[in-house]
């Protein structure tokens, strides 16, 4: 994912902003990292360049 996606995404549960943490980058593309909800604190993984914003109860181990 690109950082510009942050402009429009939010926590699926409470729609609050997300905070990005980058573990691995390739140019502009964020390959691994996480997105943390600034309100509820829930964390969403970014894996292989794709953020997984499923509600936590629908998310299973990859």
């Amino acid at each position, binding site marked *: *994912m690109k950082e510009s996606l942050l402009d429009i995404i939010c926590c*699926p*549960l409470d729609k609050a902003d997300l905070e990005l943490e980058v573990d691995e980058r390739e140019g502009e593309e964020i390959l691994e990292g996480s997105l943390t909800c600034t309100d509820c604190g829930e964390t969403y993984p970014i894996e292989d360049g*794709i953020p*997984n914003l499923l*509600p936590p109860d*629908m998310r299973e181990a990859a």
Partner: protein
Amino acid sequence: MSVREEFDDWASEGRDRGMEQRHWHTARHVLSRMPVEDGETVLDLGCGSGYAARALRDAGGAGRAYGLDGSPEMAHNAREYTDDDSVGFLIGDFGDLPFADDSVDHVFSMEAFYYAADPVETLREIRRILRPGGTFYCAVNYYEENVHSHEWQEFIEIEMTRWDRSEYRAAFREAGLHVAEQDTVPDRETEIPPASEFPTEEWDSREAMVERYREFGTLLTVGIAP
């Protein structure tokens, strides 16, 4: 079975590309009707192989195009099929869209909406994320008047919503969307064999196959956020 389990299987069997090919016959006409202006942000719900996001960038002039899918494998495949920097994919569910209020200009969805666990709630979510005047182009082959689609539920364990035309309009309005249009878009490309070749494996009669593709085609309902 969950959306994820069902469609991860489809994706790994390559059915994402097969659907793209078949759905493109009508989806391309639907996409070309969308009033996308240069630089706008568009979103494809239940993106499968991600062809709509690619097409809206290539032909439609969209500034950014995103595809959301509940199946990680679908999203991963979709990401492999493009290197356009302004196309992106996300994993998410129709019930809890991970987009801010008023953040998207247009939403498209092909053969996916009826898998939503609570379709009216999904329409409310769509209305929430659309900017005022933003459009939702909702295209389905599985709908009440298309009698040839009714049996599809037998082949899939996820519960599918089978509304008729007027139920689509009513649900859009219930969710606060204005209804701008409703149409059935014919598939003129699927080849229909000569009458002598019927019955085929899938079709009892040529008439039935003609009705399915050329007449019922894809039901399109267009909603607008007020």
